[in-house]
């Protein structure tokens, strides 16, 4: 009963902390972005008034026209650019769209507008999203050996570090390399190719993409007259896939690190209940139940038990 109450309290506390996090973020975004919005509204109002004075256009006719502009904008037809040369649904663009859909990035720069496209999107993503997660998991499983287990073992043998220290050092080095190779270097590349992006914009795009948020305010290969556009789109697609793989790798490495330090035991609420249930049928192993309760005493009885386990494996 006390364990059940404790797990309920932990879950409720976790949910409350989560909602508090949402509220704080909402406050900060509202404080930062609201003045910009109001100033843009004022600019547009003055611009509209100036435009109406210059010409004899009726206000109602102008608003009707602008509504049609926005509807055309949703189709991807834009007045900002000379869009007659470019199509949103050629093979490279469709491949890029399909990739962003199944990875749940979802920029929204192009969206299906026909009913058949929408229905197909539902079926396609329903199978494609778990399929992609399965492929990413398989890749991460293979990368764990050369990138996580082997370096930690090498640290333990050469530097003589314990597993905890080796895990911490390895995680810090891995995090630094990932930030350098998958955020800073691609940001430099994107800011060089995309003329209107600054370094912060490119870094912001890399972060939004690799976390699969995909707000869609910055989308690569959307500039008019982009040279080698198909190749550029496919390269971004490959970058997204490899980047997601590496993000999962970092997440799993962090999970291993948390396992070593015992942090995950704090969050794994069902495991407490499991422990309580499993202790009841274990009558023969009574003394071994005492060992996890006392951490200091756990060293001595574990040596013979592990040796026994090892000897039994030999036999």
């Amino acid at each position, binding site marked *: 009963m006390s364990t059940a109450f404790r797990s309920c309290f932990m879950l409720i506390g976790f949910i409350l902390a989560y909602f508090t996090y949402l509220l704080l973020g909402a406050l900060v975004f509202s404080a*930062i972005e609201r003045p910009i919005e109001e100033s843009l509204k004022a600019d547009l109002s003055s611009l509209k008034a100036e435009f109406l004075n210059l010409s004899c256009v009726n206000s109602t006719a102008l608003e009707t026209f602008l509504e049609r502009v926005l509807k055309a904008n949703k189709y991807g037809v834009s007045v900002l650019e000379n869009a007659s040369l470019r199509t949103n649904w050629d093979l490279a663009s469709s491949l890029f769209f399909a990739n962003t859909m199944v990875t749940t990035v979802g920029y929204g720069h192009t969206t299906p*507008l026909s009913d058949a496209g929408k229905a197909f999107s539902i079926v396609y993503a329903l199978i494609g999203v778990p*399929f992609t997660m399965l492929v990413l998991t398989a890749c991460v499983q293979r990368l764990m050996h050369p990138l996580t287990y082997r370096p930690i073992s090498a640290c333990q043998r050469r530097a003589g570090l314990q597993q905890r220290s080796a895990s911490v050092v390895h995680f810090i080095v891995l995090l630094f390399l990932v930030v350098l190779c998958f955020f800073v270097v691609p940001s430099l590349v994107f800011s060089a190719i995309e003329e209107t992006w600054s370094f912060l914009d490119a870094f912001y795009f890399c972060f939004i993409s690799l*976390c699969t948020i995909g707000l869609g305010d910055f989308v690569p290969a959307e500039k008019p007259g982009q040279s080698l556009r198909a190749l550029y789109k496919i390269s971004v697609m490959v970058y997204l896939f490899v980047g997601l793989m590496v993000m999962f790798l970092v997440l799993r490495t962090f999970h291993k690190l948390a396992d070593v330090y015992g942090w995950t035991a704090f969050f794994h609420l069902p495991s407490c209940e499991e422990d309580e249930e499993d202790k009841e049928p274990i009558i023969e192993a009574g003394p071994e139940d005492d060992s996890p309760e006392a951490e200091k005493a756990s060293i001595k009885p574990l040596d013979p038990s592990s040796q026994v386990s090892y000897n039994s494996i030999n036999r």
Partner: protein
Amino acid sequence: MACRGSCCCGCGPVNEDNARFIMLLLLIILYLLCGAAVFSALEHPKEKLAKERWAQRFELFSQKYNLNKSDLENFLRHYEEANMAGIRVDTLRPRWDFTGAFYFVGTVVSTIGFGMTTPATVGGKIFLIFYGLIGCAATILFFNLFLERIITVLAFVLKSCHEIQRRRKGVLPHDSRQDSRLNHEDSLAGWKPSVYCVMLILCVAAIIISCCASAMYSSIEGWRYLDSLYFCFVAFSTIGFGDMVSSQRAIYENQTVYRICNFLFILMGVCCIYSLFNVISIVIKQVLNWLLKKLKIPCRHCHRRSLRPRRNAVMPSHLRTRVRNISIDTDAVNDSETDGRRLSGEMISMRDFLAANKVNLAIMQKQLSETANGHPRPGGSTNRHNGFSGGVGALGIMNNRLAETSVDR
């Protein structure tokens, strides 16, 4: 002869894993290409039609009011820049008041990311990077904890099926639940129906939530029902294109109730669809295993070719008898050592045992509990252990995958 037999057994899973992995990669590339072709075929004609229509309207408007085309294009360019910042002709809700910012923040940390609102200032972008880094990780953990509870509840519901199958009577409900789970995980025949039952239940739950939410959106937002269903799927699966976004008008009927229902529907829908995706990935893996059985003969041929360059004779027997997680560590140790230094490798294995005290203790507790219950299968022990350390996000799939692999062996 026994030595060769153990070598074959040792080589089998590695080769099978590689074949499964390559097949997965090829299938997903094929899947993307097919999807691209279908989308291009469906959407390209409508895009051309829209362009022609726009050109006609532009021409008519400029002729009707005697406007210079370049002046009109400049005005429209300014207007679209304001549009990107969220200024519209229609009276929409303010983007960055508290409720609008809360909606944006919710879509960011759940990785839906509609994009109807984006930070325009440098401070907003920098804050979003750090805020999203912590928020997305916390959300993934939250969804994973929800998934664990969903699976636990469904396993509890499926207890009666296993009780009927096992024909056990007079057992305490506490013990029978535990035994039901053990049987659920141990037997290979019992594994597949349970996965399909879980998928069926999650499908029904997701469909019910989507239909209710679609009814609400189509009545209040004025969308068609299919469009509402499309929005529900795109939002709940966290793709979030942003072509349709709920709760964007300035004034609604029963606005507070609508916003609260909108939030709750999206939260429940994301949880259910997320669980459904995990279960579908398990089913996809089973289909791949079934395909591999048909390709059994070429795999055996590959076995024999790769027989001798593979491992030492002693290690495969170790791999065969050990639990999955320990064998992973032993693989790492074995790869770093030469084959001739067996004693050194064994000593390092003992160090790994001592270093992983908690893991070994958990495994031994599980083995002893299963021995007491009369089910000493190592596969069950692996399943239970993996059930303990349920992964975060995609890691949960990995644990399910490893458990299923050990069950297949």
